[in-house]
């Protein structure tokens, strides 16, 4: 069974939980899942075990509190502490997948839009020009910003668990709005302020599209083979 099958199974079984058990387990699931560096396989296996156990207990009239105790956060931390780290190769393929997929999408979009503008409206000179050094640094900065963004979102989701009082919706919205604006703003500012350095590259749009397609296809095949997402 693949990890994604375990997640699917968990999704189906979780429906059988009722009332406070559902809430208690739901928080546990989010708290235990939102970890970097922990083996996805072991994480999903233990989550499914905890769920199976709780379902049995529920059928016998016991609650999540009876099974896992009054301090779910402490219990989760104990569980997380024993989950082994993700294998380096798995982590690397996941990061590689994300990076290639992203570059593929961006290159395809830029290439196709650029080509269309040139072809239909005679805008630009049919080339995309950029200094190589600046280009690479900008990509690295944007990837770093993305990683930071994801990290902050994970932290936020994790800290939303095991709360008696849910924070006000509009405050959450405002915080998220500021966060997203900052992320998008910084991503766009990076090329704006980047000084030009490195050899000047002139790549025609069809070549750009082709390169993007290659990146995208490789990432697509990678995911099909290794089921990195879904």
């Amino acid at each position, binding site marked *: 069974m693949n990890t994604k099958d375990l997640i699917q199974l968990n999704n189906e079984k979780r429906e059988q939980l009722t009332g406070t058990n559902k809430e208690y387990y739901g928080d546990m699931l989010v708290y235990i899942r939102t970890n970097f560096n922990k083996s996805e396989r072991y994480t999903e296996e233990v989550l499914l075990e905890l769920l199976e*156990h709780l379902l049995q207990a529920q059928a016998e009239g016991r609650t999540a509190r009876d099974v896992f105790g009054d301090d779910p956060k402490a219990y989760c931390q104990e569980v997380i502490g024993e989950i082994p780290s993700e294998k380096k190769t798995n982590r690397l393929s996941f990061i590689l997948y994300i990076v290639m997929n992203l570059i593929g999408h961006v290159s395809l979009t830029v290439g196709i839009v650029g080509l269309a503008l040139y072809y239909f409206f005679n805008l630009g000179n049919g080339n995309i020009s950029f200094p190589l050094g600046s280009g690479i640094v900008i990509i690295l900065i944007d990837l770093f910003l993305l990683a930071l963004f994801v990290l902050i979102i994970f932290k936020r989701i994790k800290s939303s668990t095991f709360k008696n009082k849910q924070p006000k919706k509009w405050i959450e919205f405002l915080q998220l709005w500021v966060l997203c604006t900052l992320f998008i703003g910084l991503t766009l500012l990076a090329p704006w302020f980047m000084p030009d350095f490195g050899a000047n590259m002139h790549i025609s749009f069809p070549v750009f599209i082709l390169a993007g397609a290659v990146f995208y296809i490789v990432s697509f095949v990678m995911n099909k083979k290794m089921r990195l997402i879904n």
Partner: protein
Amino acid sequence: MTLRSQLLKGILEGCILSIISRQPTYGYELSVKLQEFGLNDVSEGSIYPILLRLQKENLIQGEMKKSDTGPKRKYYALTNEGHEALKQFIYHWRTIKAPVDTIIGEGGNIR
């Protein structure tokens, strides 16, 4: 942590290894068996961090298998290292158990 739970921590690992050594066991089954043997104030959930630790130490191995009654479950079995660790535990337990029993018993007599 109460004195009892401190005492129990290491011993529980040995008991879990022993139960699993008899036949492949899944989590819920394991907790039921522990209770049946009288360890009924071991909170049910506390076996899962221990199971993870035993897997990390490569003493047990889990496998997703279809159970007789239907759903797929993770059954645990001992590895070779696990059998070795169980032997060690039994040995250490025996060398500790008798003297401790005597000490507690005689401690009462000395007074």
